[in-house]
C-alpha cells in the first residue's frame, strides 16, 4: 500500500489546484499542452495504413484535439481517455466504468460520439477529437450547457460531461428533437443520481433556443 492515501496533507497544493482546474476546464477552450517528445521516438505517420509495427514502448503521435494538433508520447495500450486526461490534461472527460457501459467518457471522433475508454490512442489516426472542453466556443457556453445550468440537470456531476456531449450532438444534428429523440441520444449515458428528467428538459429547452 502506498502512503499517499493515508496522508492527504503531504501534498497540500494538489487538491486546491484540482478544484480550480475543474472549474476552469468546463469553460476554457483547450489548453495547448505540448508533451516533450522522445528524441528517439518514431513518428506515427499518416495515413494509418502502413503495414508497420509500433510499440510496445511509447512513441510520439500527433492528435488533433478541439482544433489544435498536439504531439504526445503514448503506448499502444494507452486509451484515448487516458491520452486526453493524463497526457493532455483535458480532465473534463471522465472515466467511470472503464468498459464502455456508462459513456461518461464520451468524446467525438470525427463528430461522432464514442467511448474514449474503449479505444487506443492509436485508433485516432488522422481523425479529429472533440472533448467537453471544445464545446464552448470563444468563451460562450453551448445552449445545451446553459440549459443544464438553468434546469439544474446535474447532481454529482460524474456523468455530466458525457451527458452534455450526447445532448449537444443531438441538438447540433437535429434542429427539432422530441423527447424520444433525447432518450435515444442518451441511451448509453448512465446517471446514478437519476437526473434524467432534468437532462431531457434541459436538452429540449436548448433545442428550442437554437432554432
Amino acid at each position, binding site marked *: 500500500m502506498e502512503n499517499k492515501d493515508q496522508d492527504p496533507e503531504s501534498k497540500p497544493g494538489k487538491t486546491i489546484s484540482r478544484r480550480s482546474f475543474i472549474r476552469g476546464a468546463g469553460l476554457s477552450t483547450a489548453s495547448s499542452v505540448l508533451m516533450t517528445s522522445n528524441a528517439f521516438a518514431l513518428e506515427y505517420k499518416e495515413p494509418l495504413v502502413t503495414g508497420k509495427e*509500433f510499440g510496445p514502448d511509447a512513441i510520439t503521435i500527433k492528435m488533433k484535439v478541439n482544433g489544435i494538433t498536439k504531439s504526445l508520447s503514448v503506448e499502444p495500450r494507452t486509451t484515448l481517455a487516458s491520452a486526453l486526461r493524463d497526457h493532455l490534461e483535458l480532465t473534463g472527460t471522465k472515466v467511470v466504468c472503464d468498459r464502455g457501459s456508462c459513456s461518461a467518457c464520451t468524446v467525438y471522433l470525427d463528430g461522432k460520439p464514442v467511448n474514449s475508454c474503449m479505444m487506443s490512442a492509436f*485508433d485516432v489516426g488522422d481523425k479529429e477529437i472533440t472533448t467537453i472542453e471544445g464545446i464552448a466556443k470563444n468563451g460562450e457556453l453551448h445552449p445545451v450547457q446553459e440549459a443544464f445550468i438553468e434546469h439544474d440537470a446535474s447532481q454529482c456531476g460524474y456523468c455530466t460531461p458525457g451527458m452534455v456531449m450526447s445532448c449537444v450532438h443531438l441538438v447540433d444534428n437535429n434542429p427539432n428533437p422530441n423527447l424520444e429523440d433525447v432518450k435515444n441520444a442518451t441511451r448509453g449515458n448512465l446517471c446514478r443520481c437519476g437526473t434524467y428528467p432534468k437532462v431531457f428538459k434541459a436538452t429540449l429547452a436548448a433545442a428550442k433556443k437554437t432554432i
Partner: protein
Amino acid sequence: MNKFSWYEAKSVEDALEQVNSTLSDELYEPTQKASVFKSGGIDVFDWVKEGLLKPQKIINIRNIPGLDQISYDRKEGLHIGSNVTLAEIASNPEIKSQYLALHQAVNHAATPQLRNVSTLGGNIAQRNRCWYFRSADHDCFRKGGDRCFARHSETGENENHAILDNGTCVSVHASSIATALMAFNASVVIANAEGKQKTVQMDDFFVSAGEDIAMENILQAKEIITEIILPPPSKNTKSAYIKQVARESYDWSLADVAVVMEVSGNTCKSASIVLGAAAPVPYRSVEAQQAIESKTINSDNATAAAKAAMTKARPLSKNDYKVPLFVSTIKQTILEIA
C-alpha cells in the same frame, strides 16, 4: 492492460501474415505470445482490461481498405463488409426497407457510442457475457478450467443463462444481431492465409459448446471475416424482431426472437425462426418453424408455434422465467408479421 505492440494491417493478406492466434485460443490456453486481430476493439479491449487476454501484439484490421462497404442489389442480396459499423447498418435505408428484422436488431444492440465503433464482424465474433467466464477469479470450462460456477443449483448466478442446449455450457451468445442474421439465412465470408475464401451459412459459423468448448465460432487463427451476405428477399418476405431486456435504455438480451417468413396473404409459406439468449449459440427453432408453416398467421397458431419452441427447454435454477418469456415473445414476433 499489459504492454502490447500495435500493427497497422494494410490489407487482408498482410493481416493474415501477422496473426498467430485467436481470442478464443488465447483465453482457453494463454501463451501471452498471441498476435490477435482487433477492429472496433470493444470486446478485445474488454478482455485485455480484465487481464484475461495478454496479447503480445494487436493487429489493427479496422483500417484495411475495402471492408467497410454496404451494397444491396435485388438479385445479389445484401453484402455488408466486416468493418461496417453497427451505426452504418442502422442508418442504411435499404436495410430498413428490405431487412427490417436486422434493422431492428441493430437498433436495439448496445449504445449509440458503441454502435459508432463496433463492427459487424466483431459483433458476431465476440465472446459470450457469462460473468464467470469473464471473471479472472472464476474457473470456467471455456477458459480451460475444470468446473462451471454458473450451473450450480444453489450458488450459480444463472438468471441470464441458457435454457436450451445447455448440457455442456450454460452461457448464451452475446450477439443479438446474429439472431436476425441467422433468421435471414445469412452467410459469412472467411478468407484464409492461403489466399482462399470460403462462404459458410450462419448456422454452420457458430460452434456448439458440445462440439468444442473453447470456441463459439469456426474461426481459426489464420482466418478473417471479410463480409456477411444476406440473400435477396422476395416480394412476399416479411420479417420482425423483438428483444426483451431488464431496463429500457439498453441492455444485454434476456430473450430475443427474429422471424423471417414467406407469406401468401395471411398464410405462412415458410418460416425461419431464431432465438437469441436461449442457448450458447443463436438457436434455430425447427419446432416453431414446422408448427407455423402452411398455417394461417393468427394468435392460436402463433401460440402453438411458440410453445413448440420451448418443448426442449431445460431451465437452470434461476432462469425458468425465460420459458414463458420466450413463449410470449415468439408469439408476439410472429404476429408482428401478420
